[in-house]
């Protein structure tokens, strides 16, 4: 049946619009304002047009941060997606094990992001951290504050530790939604467990996996707090991702003009991605109704 056509429904949406307008539209206008002006002193601003945009677009550090960001997101997805699916497959299907697994998996998701950074900062330190000390004992020199590679390994490990459970939870929910008869039919057809996975479980999980993939892409693209606490963007700038760089420009250096321009470009990139996100989601939604 079709939805009821009634424009009075707008009244129900107004509260949301007021709140989101307050926390999204007004700030966004301010940002646009900054990006087009040079604020010399409070109350004294000069219209500079696209000046800041040109400056930001030619900033090689921003380019570096962008590529770093893409590399980071790609690596994270490559590890988290298969690992998450594997965990979901290994999870128990009945009994107390379900509750235990779900609670354990959800735990890292509810730890404040800076605490995540703290946990790992402690964990990988060569002097007091279990991980750092153990690796060094094996004869591998490891120090995430000095070596870029070690810093990357640490950040990725942390990210995987933090967010793989989300993929696993989504995949698990997807698996649970597969009716038992599919497994029965596969058994009767003599399918091996690999074939059952490839021809039944994977296609049936497509919807949730798409969502997991996109969510993980978005959130890893916006990452800030955890690497900030862990490495502060270093050593050098080797773990300075987009958000960290933006905060550096806008908050620490108070360069409001370039900060504003950077913000908008960053937001546009994310918007573009979220548009693709929305399109894909729509298509997945339709595909599942068949």
């Amino acid at each position, binding site marked *: 049946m079709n939805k009821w*056509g009634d424009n009075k429904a707008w009244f129900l949406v107004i509260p949301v619009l007021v709140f989101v307008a307050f926390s999204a539209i007004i700030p966004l206008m301010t940002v646009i304002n900054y990006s087009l002006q040079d604020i010399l002193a409070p109350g004294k601003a000069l219209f500079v047009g696209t000046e800041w945009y040109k400056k930001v677009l030619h900033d090689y550090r921003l380019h570096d941060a962008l590529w770093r960001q893409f590399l980071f997101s790609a690596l994270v997805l490559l590890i988290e997606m298969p690992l998450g699916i594997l965990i979901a497959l290994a999870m128990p299907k009945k009994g107390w094990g379900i509750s235990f697994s779900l609670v354990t998996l959800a735990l890292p998701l509810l730890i404040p992001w800076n605490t995540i950074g703290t946990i790992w900062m402690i964990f990988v330190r060569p002097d007091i951290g279990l991980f750092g000390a153990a690796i060094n004992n094996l004869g591998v020199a490891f120090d995430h504050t000095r070596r870029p590679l070690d810093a990357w390994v640490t950040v990725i490990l942390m990210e995987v530790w933090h967010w793989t459970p989300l993929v696993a939870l989504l995949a698990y929910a997807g698996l649970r939604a597969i009716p038992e008869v599919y497994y029965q039919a596969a058994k009767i057809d003599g399918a091996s467990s690999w074939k059952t996975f490839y021809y039944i479980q994977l296609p049936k999980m497509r*919807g949730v996996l798409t969502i997991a993939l996109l969510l993980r892409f978005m959130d890893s693209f916006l990452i800030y707090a955890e690497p900030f606490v862990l490495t502060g963007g270093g050593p050098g700038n080797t773990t300075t991702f987009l958000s960290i760089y933006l905060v550096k420009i806008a*908050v620490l250096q108070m360069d409001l003009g370039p900060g504003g321009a950077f913000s908008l470009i960053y937001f546009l990139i994310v918007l573009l991605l979220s548009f693709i996100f929305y399109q894909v989601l729509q298509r997945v939604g339709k595909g599942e109704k068949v």
Partner: protein
Amino acid sequence: MKGKKKTIFLAIYFGLLFLPIYWMINMSLRTNADILGTLTLYPEDPTFRNYVKIFTDSSWYSGYINSIIYVTINTLISLTVALPAAYAFSRYQFVGDKQIFFWLLTNRMAPSAVFLIPFFQLYSTIGLMDTHIAVALAHCLFNVPLAVWILEGFMSGIPREIDETAFIDGYSLPRFFITIFIPLIRAGVGVTAFFCFMFSWVELLFARTLTVTNAKPISAVMTRTISATGLDWGLLATAGVLTIVPGALVIWFVRNHMAKGFALGRV
């Protein structure tokens, strides 16, 4: 045999998952001197001194209280405004419905860093700086769209004939909504509250920027302390452990509904 392999794999994974947390707990039970002295796998001389300090020093424990206050306010606001909106999106067709729904979702995708300076200025201007409500409002940026998104999913699962029957019976929309409809989507409201709590609880950037002392959340207290006290690892670890507790409690209460929330795929 296959089942056994799975269990072993899962046990190893869960072991690795707990290890960093365990290590932090381990350190929270030791003094700083002890930590810096020798590396031991478990606290040989466990002490609760760090915990005592946090529970008795108001600059520490008020951080927890502040966090809980603004998270609660945010969750309440998000649910209150999202419920009618989600109902509108799930039931009605109106001018601009799809566009607004999409625009709401884009806010969930916005990089927090973009909004830092404007928020700072906005809340300074209207005198809300360093208040709980400021952080709660800021978190609405991503939590309200999220709540609308999840609730809409649950509401669409309720047949519209129930609404119609109620209107035929003479219920007004608000009365129907409160007495009949909300009880029907109880689980959805619970799941939504859980996610609002979660995202507000774990957020750092806004909470730190919009507060100075009065509403400073525990996460911000921790970051400051790193530089202030030099490196009291034991205290830092203890503060970290204590930030995990509320989250763990919440999970425990919603554990049976969690899978359902995830099944909708709307996180």
